[in-house]
């Protein structure tokens, strides 16, 4: 599904990584590990098309990745939760639902935030903010999820729910690339260890 051929990214005159290749099929998961600054987040941003590739090629279902718009292809979960503190939980999600489709209520159910739907996002705890960001993944199905340390701040119950969300995504043929320092609820995931080109 996703095919990366010798990717290289240069940021600020420094080679973040180079010669990175992998293949990701439907239902597969790839876990990115490596020390801080090894380039995990940069790789995810490059896969999302937010950071230009210095070298290499990214192919999506046999064609150049840019051929298909990102909105129907992938979701990117970043460190920053992209929440507006002035909007309520439901309003925050409703805006993204208007971009991507999907219904707000079931997505909030999936991360157990439905009882807080009317609460302003500025009152959420760190874990709840994370869960609201995760709810964006549950809005409308797309084939590829790019997750940057998705479980930071989540409690055990929330991680179990997130595991169920991941399992459903993969059972439906979705692929996952996740950067992490802790074990994720991803069974049978491949591992890509980034060393960082110093």
């Amino acid at each position, binding site marked *: 599904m996703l095919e990366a051929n010798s990717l290289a990214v240069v940021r600020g005159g420094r080679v973040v990584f180079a010669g990175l290749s992998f293949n990701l099929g439907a239902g597969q998961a790839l876990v990115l590990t490596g020390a801080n600054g090894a380039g995990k987040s940069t790789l995810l941003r490059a896969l999302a098309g*937010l950071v230009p590739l210095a070298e290499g090629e990214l192919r999506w279902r046999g064609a150049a990745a840019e051929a298909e718009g990102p*909105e129907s292809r992938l979701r990117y979960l*970043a460190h920053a*939760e*992209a929440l507006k503190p*002035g909007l309520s939980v439901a309003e925050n999600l409703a805006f*993204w639902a208007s971009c991507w489709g999907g219904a707000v209520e079931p997505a909030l159910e999936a991360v157990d935030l439905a009882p807080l739907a009317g609460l302003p996002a500025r009152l959420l705890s760190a874990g709840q903010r994370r869960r609201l960001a995760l709810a964006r993944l549950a809005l409308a199905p797309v084939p590829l999820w790019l997750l940057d340390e998705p479980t930071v701040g989540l409690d055990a119950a929330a991680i179990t729910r997130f595991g169920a969300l991941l399992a459903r995504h993969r059972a439906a043929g979705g692929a996952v690339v996740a950067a992490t320092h802790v074990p994720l609820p991803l069974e049978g995931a491949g591992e890509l260890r980034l060393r960082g080109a110093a």
Partner: protein
Amino acid sequence: MIALLRRELLLAFRHPADTLAAMLFFLLVTALFPFGVGPAPEALARLAPGALLAAALLAALLPLDRLFGAEAEDGSLDQLLLSGLSGWEIALAKALAHWLTTGAPLLLAAPVAAAMLNLPEPAWGVAILVLGLATLFLSLLGTAGAALTLGARRGGVLLPLLVLPLAIPAMIFGAAGIEAAAGGVAVRPFLLLLGALTAAALPLAPLAAGAALRAE
């Protein structure tokens, strides 16, 4: 794009401080002129067109550096770029929202400012029209400037340096238009020129801003 515009307006409605700050800034700057120039009505009326426009443009400039800065910091910008909206759509929604929440409220304050500067009453209508067009022009230019300076250190200083020189044509035609209205001369040519500037910026500025956002 409509959804983004609606979100921006909802956010501005929940946090009205930015809008109020721009209006108060506009009124305070125009209130300073009589103190500096002296209360002679003729001297004030002579200054009024230029002072009104300069104050309005500076007031509309205030919230511009947060236009994309806030979005970039909380991660919304990345998500917007992946939302299926093209760069120019994001920029156009942002520019229109900026005008509706900063430029348009200034028009409400304009009669008060015009009175303080002793602008002849028959020219008030034209003054409001000119301010509306000029602030829309600045919103468009400013959106492109904000997108270009995003991520630059001291972007807040760079932005006015980039945008204000480009706003000089709007300043010239706008002030001349208000002066013409105050003097009872034909206003139409000035309004047409100002309108043409705004009409040219309407597609060009969002395209430039969109390209700058993508290149970030």
